[in-house]
């Protein structure tokens, strides 16, 4: 359902709600004010991706509130952002219909959709209207490889992410005398998990890690005992995980319960690796490593951002950050373009050199819509917190690797 109101996280968004409610309840007043730039937020806030979608939405709304409070888009006479809120319901068809509805409601740009499957379909739909679409989360290479001029992704794509995750594991492994020589990959069945696992399985032998088995599981999976048993029988040195929130945490828990002896539990874009996991499941999460989007912990602004997010009673997750910066990138492009017209805005995005962020990469440089140089980092759950442990230039703690026996 598309609506102009914000009802996401109550505490942080109380002020933001006025954005949409205002335009619903007092249209005459709204018209009298400076013009608005409408951003369609297409996220799955219900269904099995609800948590991630809600986090994305919260991040985008934070940025919108911040920009509006600071005077809006100055080159457009102080035009304010207006959020068009949509729920993709974790379903591809709904993501498409939400995009269509928002396009017809006058959306000037889109941000979404957390998942690759939703993003692929929604960007295609937005392309029909030539409306710019910023991907906050959604890793598939295909999102920016189809030649769609309206699509931009701030974070790294799939191939780069997986290749760098293998490099990272290799770097950690070599630094400790290469204790990890074999691995089993466990992944969820959709595009995200499958393409990640396939590429990992191709790349790992190149760094001296034999892949003993690639295990696919359904969404949802109620019981991971079988997988834990299969892993135990084959005794790999490492278990590599690529799946979504619920199954991620259940799998880690089962591996711990079944006392599967591994030297590393390493995930790539682990859907369930977050601060709540580290904090509330300390025994399960301790020393689990994840290669994922995260801030540069050496940047004081990043730590300040995290404090602000947590003060607003939200969990600081990568979804919040990435959606937040997508709005900021859009704002930067609008300031330069001086208009929300489609072609000038797309051109402004394509030439973006946005550097006002605290992710571990430099200014944006989009090539075919993909930001070059974007990368993730290796984070480890240590003592109820998440710490960057690799690469060294961003590390805030020593990696516990291999795991103590």
């Amino acid at each position, binding site marked *: 359902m598309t609506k102009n109101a914000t009802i996401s996280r109550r505490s942080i968004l109380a002020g933001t709600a006025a954005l949409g409610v205002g335009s619903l309840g007092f249209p005459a007043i709204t018209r009298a004010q400076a013009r608005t730039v409408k951003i369609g937020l297409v996220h799955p806030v219900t269904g099995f991706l609800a*948590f991630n979608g809600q986090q994305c939405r919260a991040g985008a709304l934070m940025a919108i509130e911040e920009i509006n409070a600071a005077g809006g888009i100055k080159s457009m006479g102080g035009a304010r952002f207006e959020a068009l809120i949509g729920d993709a319901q974790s379903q591809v068809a709904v993501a498409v219909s939400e995009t269509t509805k928002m396009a017809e409601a006058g959306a000037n740009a889109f941000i979404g959709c957390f998942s690759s499957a939703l993003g692929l379909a929604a960007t295609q739909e937005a392309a029909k209207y030539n409306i710019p679409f910023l991907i906050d989360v959604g890793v598939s290479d295909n999102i920016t490889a189809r030649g769609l001029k309206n699509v931009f992704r701030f974070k790294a794509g799939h191939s780069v992410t997986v290749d760098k995750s293998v490099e990272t594991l290799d770097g950690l492994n070599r630094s400790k005398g290469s204790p990890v020589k074999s691995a089993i990959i466990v992944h969820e069945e959709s595009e995200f998990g499958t393409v990640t696992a396939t590429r990992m399985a191709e790349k790992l032998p190149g760094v001296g890690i034999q892949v003993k088995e690639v295990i696919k599981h359904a969404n*949802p999976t109620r019981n991971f005992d079988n997988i834990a048993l299969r892993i135990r029988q084959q005794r790999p040195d490492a278990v590599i995980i690529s799946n979504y929130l619920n199954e991620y945490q259940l799998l880690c828990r089962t591996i711990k319960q079944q006392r599967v002896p591994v030297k590393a539990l390493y995930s790539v874009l682990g859907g369930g690796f977050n601060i709540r996991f580290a904090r509330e499941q300390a025994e399960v999460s301790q020393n689990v490593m994840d290669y994922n989007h995260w801030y540069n912990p050496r940047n004081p602004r990043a730590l300040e951002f995290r404090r602000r997010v947590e003060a607003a009673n939200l969990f600081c997750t990568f979804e919040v950050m990435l959606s937040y910066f997508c709005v900021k990138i859009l704002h930067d492009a609008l300031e330069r373009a001086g208009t929300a017209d489609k072609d000038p805005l797309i051109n402004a995005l394509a030439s973006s050199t946005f550097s006002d962020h605290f992710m571990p990469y430099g200014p944006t440089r989009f090539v075919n819509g993909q930001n070059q140089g974007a990368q993730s980092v290796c984070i480890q759950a240590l003592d109820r917190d998440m710490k960057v442990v690799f690469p060294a230039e961003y590390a805030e703690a020593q990696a516990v690797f291999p795991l103590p026996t």
Partner: protein
Amino acid sequence: MIYDFPIIFSSVMNGLMLGGIYALVALGLTLIYGVLHIINFAHGSLLMIAMFAVWLLLETLGIDPYVALPLMVAGMFGLGYVLYKGVVGPMSHGEDANILLVTLGVAVILDNLALYLFTGDTRIIERPYSFEMVEIGPALITLPKLISFLGSLAVCLVLWLLIDRTDLGKAIRAVAKERQGARLVGIDVENIFALTYAIGVACLGAAACLLLPTFYVSPQVGNVFVIIAFTIVVLGGMGSFLGALVGGLIIGVTEALGGLFLGEALGQIGISLIFILILLFRPTGLFGGAK
């Protein structure tokens, strides 16, 4: 892949443990069907609400899920009774088809209420016994799973005694077999409907307490179990308690072995296969004729 005997044995044991929980979820569903002749579409959502209640009791009052079991059974019984008397019964206007729609509406409301209150996040609890293991032959079973299994069997037994050995049970059976006849001998049929619905929902209170130490809770968690519960009800025979128990165990073991030999993604095919075979060769279910 060829597995060692200990792995296969462990898999079967884990399947049985899981099957016990499946049975408990299916038990409430089959009871409600057996008496009211309706499928309770709100079953999964009510399980989710019960699990969040157990989680809240632990987080806010520090009450362990197992200690909370009597409280949850009583609380869910009350919720089920009020829900039937206040919403499902009056809004159905005596039509079974309406009850289906009303329970579906209740499910939508509960799901969205949970999303609003708890967000879509997943909660998993850690208890001191969460990682305790019990050796059964060569299998390592987590203590909470063993407790869940034994607890499920105990709840099944209590429910069977209630239905088979008490006046309330006689009344419920009478209403299930012949509503008009029951009404003619003075049974308050509407009240039996409400009580039956409440008992079915109370089963979910027990299931939630036994499930949470081994599983997660999120607003979508009901869907994870309710589909399988429907399969078990059909497999065991709609309205049959014994069928729900045996069906749950069969499905649990089938899922476990299917997952082990065919992989977790393809392993679910065993459940679908059983479902199709039952529909083809014994549409009344394993114990459907004996209810």
